[in-house]
């Protein structure tokens, strides 16, 4: 009896293992955590880019409108690619775009904006990258969509034809 029981259980066990691996193959391998969504934005303090003024997140995200927070740097190539999209979004009403200048040199950043134009309503500096970490970002570029001091969604990587649709959808 025992001898027949064992192979059958083993057989079933392997069928289960196979199914799990099979299903695992079908899943996408790109890990985009849905953390932080619908959560309150992290409180932080930062220096405004062009001056020595300090602001905090309560002051920045004050009004009843949509905000985009875009993490960018002059040394980041994909940031150049997404720039036209940002200039486009600037034209929208009821949307403010905040730029988080990530680990950048003032002069290089200024030159970047001079060359490509400035889409931001406000730029704050994140010299050591810790503010970005507070937001749960991975690096540059990354864009957060904020409403009511909550993170509605985020885009990892540059804004492109695909992801702009997501933004447009939310902004309706």
């Amino acid at each position, binding site marked *: 009896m025992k*001898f027949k029981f064992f*192979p059958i259980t*083993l*057989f079933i066990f*392997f069928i289960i293992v*196979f199914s*799990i*691996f*099979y*299903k*695992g*193959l*079908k*899943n996408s*391998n790109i*890990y985009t*955590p849905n953390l932080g969504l619908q959560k309150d934005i992290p409180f932080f303090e930062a220096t405004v880019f062009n001056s020595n003024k300090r602001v905090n997140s309560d002051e920045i995200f004050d009004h009843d409108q949509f905000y985009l927070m875009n993490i960018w*740097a*002059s*040394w980041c190539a994909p940031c150049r690619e997404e720039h036209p999209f940002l200039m486009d979004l600037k034209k929208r009403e009821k949307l403010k775009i905040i730029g988080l200048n990530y*680990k*950048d*040199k003032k002069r*290089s950043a200024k030159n970047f904006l001079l060359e490509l134009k400035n889409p931001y309503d406000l730029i704050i500096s994140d010299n050591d990258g810790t503010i970005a970490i507070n937001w749960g970002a991975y690096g540059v570029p990354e864009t957060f969509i904020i409403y009511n001091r909550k993170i509605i969604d985020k885009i990892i990587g540059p804004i492109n034809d695909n992801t702009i649709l997501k933004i447009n959808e939310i902004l309706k």
Partner: protein
Amino acid sequence: MLNSIGHYSLIFGICFSFPIIFYSVINFRNSKELDKKIIFFIFLQFFFVIVSFLGLVFLFIISDFSNETVFNNSHTTKPLFYKISGTWGNHEGSLLLWLLVLTLFLFLFTIKSKDQKKEYRILTLLFQQIIIIGFFVFLIKNSSPFNYIYPIPDEGLGLNPILQDPALAIHPPILYLGYVGSSIIFSSALAATALNYISKKWAVHIKRWVLVSWVFLTLGILLGSIWAYYELGWGGFWFWDPVENVSLMPWLALTTLLHCILVLEKRLVLTSWVVILSITTFTLSMCGTFLVRSGILNSVHTFANDPERGLYILIFLFTLIFLSLFIFFVFHKSETKNTTSFFWLSKETSILINNWFMMYFLSVILIGTIYPIFLEVLSSEKISVGPPFYNKLIIPFLIPFLFAMTIGPKLNWIKSDLKNKLNLIVFLIISFLLSYLIIKDLKISFLINTVLIGSAFFLFFVTMRDFMKSKFRNLSQSLGHLGFSLLILSILFNNIFSSEIITNLKIGETFESKKVSISFESVEKKEYQNFSAVIGKFKILHSDGKIEFLEPELRIYNQPNIVTSEADIKTNLLQDIFMTINLVQNQEYFNVRYQIKPFMLWIWLSVLLISFGGLISFLKKRQNEI
């Protein structure tokens, strides 16, 4: 032209499966000796795979970019050595290497097993042929290295510069000889089970194949670790990364199998277990191939991940598993009961204990590697299983394992009393005393480190003494175990006594500490064949007056466009000095890492010693037969 030769050679190769199977089936049933035609066709199959493989190699050498694989993985400015090694540095080429080793081992087995029964030889080659056909089909249908692209590009997409390292270049062929070589053990075990041939004679015969596979697998893993240490720039050699684990698991199964075969040679026991281990080793190899190439795991591996390929391997893998299960449960007859009781103090028992612990270690690594996949499928949660997990579960169990390894070889077969007890006790006391003296002033967990180092020293002293005393009797065992004790000791001391200084320096600046001062003297720029180098020149002044110069590099490659950090490593018998520099985005200073890594050389040497032990055992057997 070469491309067609390569492609059609593969087609010829798989065509030969037909006559091989046909004549084998006939020959199996008739009463004649092994049909020479079968050997001939097996050779032809192997020959055409070689032709195909060499075809691909030449395509890489001449940088023929009309071939898709060459285009994706090579570049005209690549040095010749790395053009050649680029052949197997990609998915399709490495599969062709798999096929080469599979057919090679089949051929070697066929001609080297003349002293075995014909039915056994035929059945083995048939099982091996099933595996070979599986790979042929996979290669030709899904992963052909001979696809054309048009229009023909002028330049290739280049090989990842991290792969342009001598150790890594030869790592796949060596590793595969072990990894894929275990296929013949698999086929042989299935054949022997089906014919009720699991016996002492079979054990003696298969042991040589186990040794070959084991030695190459050990060396292959060593090369991979050496590459990681010299190339990847973090100063470590083992990270419990899935790809590393995937090579270690068959090694554990194979080592366990080796020890069981030692028992089976002497007594007809553990037969079921030997078959299970034989099946498990190759299954783990296939499983590893699946995990690494299918994209299901996140790791440092370079092969492009493709779920469709993963699916094929998955189905093939489970076909082999179910086939093995079927053969085992239908055909295997375990030995009669009255021979299976062991005396508690005997060599058999100590090998059983070795098995027990090795299988435990194997299960830790297997579960740690696969669990995240299961969890993600079943609950959509993603977790990481990293070094802390493996360390916590493995290290405590190393202690009894080391003890068993020390005492075990000293016991006799069947029944033993422990001779030379006084010697052992003296060594034991000295080991723990030494360990205590080393650990007591360090700020690390006292008890476990003392006991761990003490046990490792104990193994070391005992095996060292055995080695000096018994000269050539059991040389392979002494070397293997001595090597292992050295390995554990080196790793432990390396871990405990490593130190590191991380600092940011501009050119001209100096870092000062009590023990050392690091001066960033200058930077030199140099142009090479396919990269430009930024070389940092450092002067290290030790507190005892010794001065050293180190020159870590940053390499900027053009194709593909990436920057790598090349460590400068100064090695001596006692320690390595390991230095890297890194650019800090948008700043004028460099990030400098200066590490002292004791006993690195001993880590490599001890693994070499272990493989050498295996080699001695292999050569000894051949002598006995002459």
